């Protein structure tokens, strides 16, 4: 069965690109428009991987990660940040919140695929 990836981003085009890249490699993709939406969808269906932006309305990425990590279901699920933020301070905050990795936008679809394969196979 195809692995399920949840992409959380307020930019529709980023969601579209992530979905296109991952679907063409055989993954199933679920989209969420901000942190709150992402949290609700993550609870609804157990995702194998969460890819989230940092700066979003309602709930930002780091808060989403912190909240997800409190759920037993998402204790060890890989969560990758995909954001324009590239400062070391931000990365440290992400790491402390429980992020599995940090990808700075813009992303190369091939490289994204390689990372996703590495993380969830």
């Amino acid at each position: 069965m195809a692995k399920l990836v949840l992409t959380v981003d307020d930019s529709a085009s980023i969601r579209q690109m992530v979905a296109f890249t991952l679907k063409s490699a055989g993954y199933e993709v679920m989209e969420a428009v901000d942190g709150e939406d992402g949290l609700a969808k993550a609870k609804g269906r157990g995702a194998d991987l969460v890819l989230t932006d940092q700066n979003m309305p309602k709930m930002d990425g780091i808060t989403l990660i912190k909240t997800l990590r409190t759920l037993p279901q998402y204790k060890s699920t890989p969560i990758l940040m995909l954001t324009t933020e590239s400062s070391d301070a931000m990365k440290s905050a992400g790491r402390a919140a429980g992020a599995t990795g940090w990808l700075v936008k813009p992303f190369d679809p091939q490289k994204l695929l390689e990372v996703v394969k590495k993380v969830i196979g």
Partner: protein
Amino acid sequence: MTSGKHAALIAAVAIVVAIVAWFAPAGLRVAAVLGAAVLVWRLTSRHGVSAAQDQAKVAPGVPAADVKGLADDLMAATEAECQGGEDELKRTLDLIHNASGTLLNNFNTVYQHVQSQRETALQVATTLGGSGGETDGSLHFSEFILDTSKTLDSFVDSTVSTSKIAMGLVETMETINDQVSSVQEILGEIEAISKQTNLLALNAAIEAARAGEAGRGFAVVADEVRNLSMRTNHFSNVIRSHMNQVYNSMNEAHDAILSVASMDMNFALQSKSRLQDTMARLNRMNREMGEAVLRIDELAGMVRDEVNSAAQALQFQDLTCQLIGQVGLHLETLRQIISSLDLAVHDTDNIASGLPAARQRIQETARTASERTSPVKQEDMQSGDIELF
């Protein structure tokens, strides 16, 4: 109004104009700076206050309403500009969003079409090339060429070999004819012997009649010998008649085989050569088609790379939209700064204490704004770093 209040008002208006100038587009900025300069010059020359004389009091005679009116106009103009800027930024965001969404869809569709084209080409090549080794019973083109070539080859070979055998048969028939002729000669000998025997029997019968009673037994023998002679002659005739029929049949067979043997074999040899040419051409076509399919496959890979690169570049939408959001924040800060000043200018009774407070608020706002960092530091569309913790 005291001259101190006037000086503060002039300074305030100059600050407002300067702030507007700072955030205004390049064209407006020059006009605004010039405006600020003219304003300061007019107010200072009219009331005899130098801009450098911070502590000097403004001369009396400037109606507070003028200063408030000026501040109101500035506030209204700034608000209108900020609002206009925000509206246009929003429209820019919508346009970029729409265009990038459409472009991404277009690129994805192109990619999918190229992939379908590639799959179709591969399917055709597999069916015709027979490289897939399927067991679905479908006839592969290269196998078809091989089969046809083998069948036609063996057909031409057997035609040529039939012709050779026929030539051998013609020789054999001629040998048989010779032997039939020699059998007929031998039959002539037998007939001659039969005649001579008949003659001998006749003579013996005559001699027996002359011997009278003593020759009667001999006359019976002579009669039997004559009968044997006649039967021999009869059988010889029957054999000759059969042999003649054999001879005629053999001649007919000989003629038929001769016509087969003497048929022109060039047509078969030419067919074989033409067939070899055709098969070589078909093989070449098949090989060229395989090469074309490989090229299509290669091109599909190149399109995929280009689409990936376009997908990366199209993320400018996300980056620019965030930057536009930052511009919106700058406009909001500007609005707050002007509003702080406007509040202070309107409270004319407490302007002496209001202006320093406004200044403090403005400094606070500016400090908060300067601490705000842009979420977008990228300067090009190169792919960003990847770090796994």
